[in-house]
């Protein structure tokens, strides 16, 4: 009994600590109300905030339209139709997830800028000079919308596709028997049934859009994230940054709310579905369908990857540079440490949730899993305020007692980074591990126990082997996410500590795009691992849906 209440306490404490950045920001907003000192806020409001809001809104609407169009059309074509390349496409369409948006932004700048190969070729062919022709500006709000849509549409694709597969043939056949044409079936049955999934996928993509810093910064679009960064680093105004972060958080909360609601509605489950017969496309229809699917794949993955490869070959010398390998080592060490730490936390929370499912524990675990929605920069701002104030206390105490200044123990070291990563990526590993744990039914525990195994032996004999794949997946997912993470790393890294993501960002910032190639390519290669895992899981669950229900060992 004592042990269990002690354990509950650790679970609740973990959730509270994970929630610190969030609490700090909420607290600063509340403080604003009490102290009535609105000078910073009103100044920001008079100058930059309307622009941030306008740009963010345009960006959100644009990306929403983009991801829905790309995601839903590709999902429908690859599930309901058969055409050459459809099987390959059904998993390849996930590939854009492997490339961080800011890196796609760099490659597009490289390819389509005035000095890029595309415009140069145009000028050579038609013998144009500067100003003779109109070409859309890549580094613009429109460019940001295109790049983010291309990178984020797989979210909508993945979730909508799962729904389309689950839709049973009988629903569509009932529609046909009631006099609907195949197209009407799509618009009046399949699409409305998939609506919760589409909303979920879109809100996920929009959360990423709000959290994005690298792309909008490179394209010179002022949004909340760039605003927070500028207010903090450019103007040195931490309070202003906190308040901007608060506003961003409100937008994110609205998105979470929408997402939760749509998930609640997503219970149009159709039990034991017989898969609908696919439309076999031939001739120009098949050509059109594959073109429509290849285009986003080409623009979202193949072209950027090719550009990165070209740059990496161009800057071959970088690969022999010990600095570069030091950077790689830093990145990977950080990723491994963070992944191990976060997965251990997730295991502790998930087991707590399973074994002592009291109300307090359930709320705590759900709260700890909220971080995925909070932009890295917001976490960084909240955390910085918290850690520096603790550091100040430590320094004062230490100087008084030992006459020694230990320096910034928390905010100036990797502790801050690991903390921020834990807040942001705990939910990823928590979800993976809870899914794995869910596969181990309670009756299996009991079956082992009644055969004479003590609880610890049950853990070793049953849980460990069954949970290993989930833990492994969680480690990879978190590790790769950490590797690619830019804004929080940029802000919280200790001095003289660089990672691949930061190097790519710095090189692109210095207009040395080709130099950003090798680190970016490295990240894309590593980023491919979770995408492959994801596509394997997707194909497997599809097979499981088609077969009769039976139990499958947990993988991915």
């Amino acid at each position: 009994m004592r042990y269990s209440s002690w354990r509950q306490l650790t679970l609740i404490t973990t959730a509270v600590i994970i929630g610190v950045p969030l609490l700090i920001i909420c607290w600063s907003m509340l403080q604003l109300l009490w102290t009535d000192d609105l000078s910073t806020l009103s100044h920001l409001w008079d100058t930059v905030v309307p622009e941030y809001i306008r740009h963010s809104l345009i960006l959100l609407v644009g990306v929403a339209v983009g991801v829905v169009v790309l995601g839903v059309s590709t999902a429908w074509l690859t599930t309901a139709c058969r055409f050459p390349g459809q099987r390959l496409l059904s998993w390849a369409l996930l590939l854009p997830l492997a490339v961080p948006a800011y890196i796609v932004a760099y490659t597009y700048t490289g390819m389509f800028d005035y000095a890029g190969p595309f415009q140069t070729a145009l000028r050579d062919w038609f013998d144009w000079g500067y100003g003779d022709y109109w070409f859309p500006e890549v580094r613009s709000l429109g460019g940001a919308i295109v790049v983010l849509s291309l990178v984020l549409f797989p979210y909508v694709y993945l979730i909508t596709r799962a729904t389309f597969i689950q839709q049973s043939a009988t629903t569509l056949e009932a529609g046909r028997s009631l006099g609907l044409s195949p197209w009407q079936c799509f618009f009046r049955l399949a699409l409305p049934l998939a609506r919760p999934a589409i909303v979920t996928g879109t809100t996920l993509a929009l959360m990423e859009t709000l959290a994005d810093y690298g792309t909008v910064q490179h394209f010179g679009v002022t949004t909340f994230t760039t605003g927070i960064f500028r207010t903090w680093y450019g103007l040195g105004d931490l309070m202003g940054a906190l308040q901007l972060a608060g506003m961003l958080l409100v937008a994110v909360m609205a998105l979470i709310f929408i997402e939760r609601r749509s998930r609640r509605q997503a219970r149009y489950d159709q039990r034991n579905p017989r898969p609908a017969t696919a439309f076999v496309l031939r001739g120009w229809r098949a050509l059109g369908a594959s073109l429509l699917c290849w285009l986003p794949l080409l623009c979202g993955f193949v072209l950027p990857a090719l550009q990165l490869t070209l740059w990496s070959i161009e800057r071959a010398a970088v690969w022999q540079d010990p600095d570069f390998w030091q950077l790689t080592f830093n990145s990977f060490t950080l990723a491994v440490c963070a992944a191990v730490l976060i997965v251990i936390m997730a295991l502790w929370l998930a087991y707590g949730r399973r074994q002592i499912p009291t109300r307090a524990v359930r709320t705590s675990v759900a709260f700890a899993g909220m971080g995925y929605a909070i932009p890295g920069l917001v976490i960084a701002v909240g955390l910085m305020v918290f850690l520096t104030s603790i550091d100040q206390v430590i320094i004062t105490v230490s100087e008084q007692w030992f006459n020694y200044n230990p320096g910034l123990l928390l905010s100036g070291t990797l502790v801050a980074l690991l903390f921020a990563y834990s807040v942001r990526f705990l939910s990823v590993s928590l979800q993976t591990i809870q899914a794995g744990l869910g596969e181990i039914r309670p009756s299996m525990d009991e079956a082992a126990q009644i055969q004479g195994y003590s609880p610890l032996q049950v853990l070793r004999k049953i849980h460990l082997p069954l949970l290993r794949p989930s833990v492994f997946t969680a480690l990879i997912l978190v590790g790769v996410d950490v590797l690619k993470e830019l804004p929080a790393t940029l802000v919280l890294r200790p001095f003289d500590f660089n990672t691949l993501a930061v190097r790519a960002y710095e090189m692109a910032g210095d207009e040395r795009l080709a130099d950003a190639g090798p680190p970016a390519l490295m990240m894309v290669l590593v980023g491919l691992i979770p995408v492959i895992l994801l596509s394997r899981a997707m194909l497997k669950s599809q097979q499981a849906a088609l077969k009769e229900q039976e139990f499958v060992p947990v993988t991915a």
Partner: protein
Amino acid sequence: MSRLQLDSINVSFGDVHIVRDVSLDLQQGEIGCLLGPSGCGKTTLLRSIAGFQTLQSGTIQIDDSLVSNQTVNVAPELRGVGMVFQDFALFPHLNVADNISFGMRKASASERRARVEELLNRIGLPGYQKRFPHELSGGQQQRVALARALAPRPRLLLLDEPFSSLDAELRERLAVEVRELLKKENITALLVTHDQHEAFAMADKAGVMYQGELLQWDTPYQLYHQPKHQLVADFIGHGVLLQGIVNDDASLTSPLGQLSHPSLLDIDAGTRVSFLVRPDDIVPDPTSRLRATVKARGFRGAHNLYTVELPGGIELLTLSPSHEQFQVGANIGLRPELDHLVIFAANLCELPGFYDQAPTVQPLPAVIPKAQTA
């Protein structure tokens, strides 16, 4: 010596009483069966015998040694009890041989191999050692789950709705097979189910649970023919409960007519009682004065089960061989052929004394229905 003995055990979750005052016992080698609608507490009862559930009061003894009471709760792994779970709970990462030998912790490798082979032969799956659970069909998984529970030779085997996830045909065949296997191994077993056919196929002793209470613990034959409680009569088999009023001349006025039985003398005249009429207690007879209209016909293969309506609107069930056909809406004659009377008082409990002698029936269709329609 009882292998398993429960003495007035109570289980509750917070304020909700799940099991109320249940007592039962099983002798070595007997197969017991708990029947009841879902949510009646039978699974909870089973789990408290296994040790996954603590008791509020009462005692559980296995081989005359106490395993559970209000304060003692011997851990499941120390009880020497085997269990077959509703969802089988096979370990997906282990093959069939490892699953079966999972509980034989102290046995040597050769002992395990021999026992696995023996059990696989018994359950009709020889050579399946290296298969994995997901490669087996539902029925095969069920048998492996049973073999796993039997492998360590438990003192007592508990089965929690073991056949409920299988289709009906397989279910009855497996029930018979499992009974044979348990008898061969001389295992004492307690089974929980909501399917009475399963219970009748398996059990030496059976009981019906309702809202946490064990209404009757008896042989299946007695549960059917001599239910101690109106709800047992309702739950087991087909049948109708008819109302009647006791007269002072050892007879009972009922929709079927005047029923006479010496034991009716023990009941006060004017008492309202209900009595059980099984479909085989009513025989179609064209010459009978008791007339009824056929409302529905259910084809049961060898028999037709007819729902018939007496003139007063009271419905009865009757069986007749399937070559003898009545159309729905036809007016037919019925003759009661009761071997014995099963009479329940207003508190739903059976009244004693009616079992050994058949009642005599005097059809008076003109009296009662008129009284009721008036």
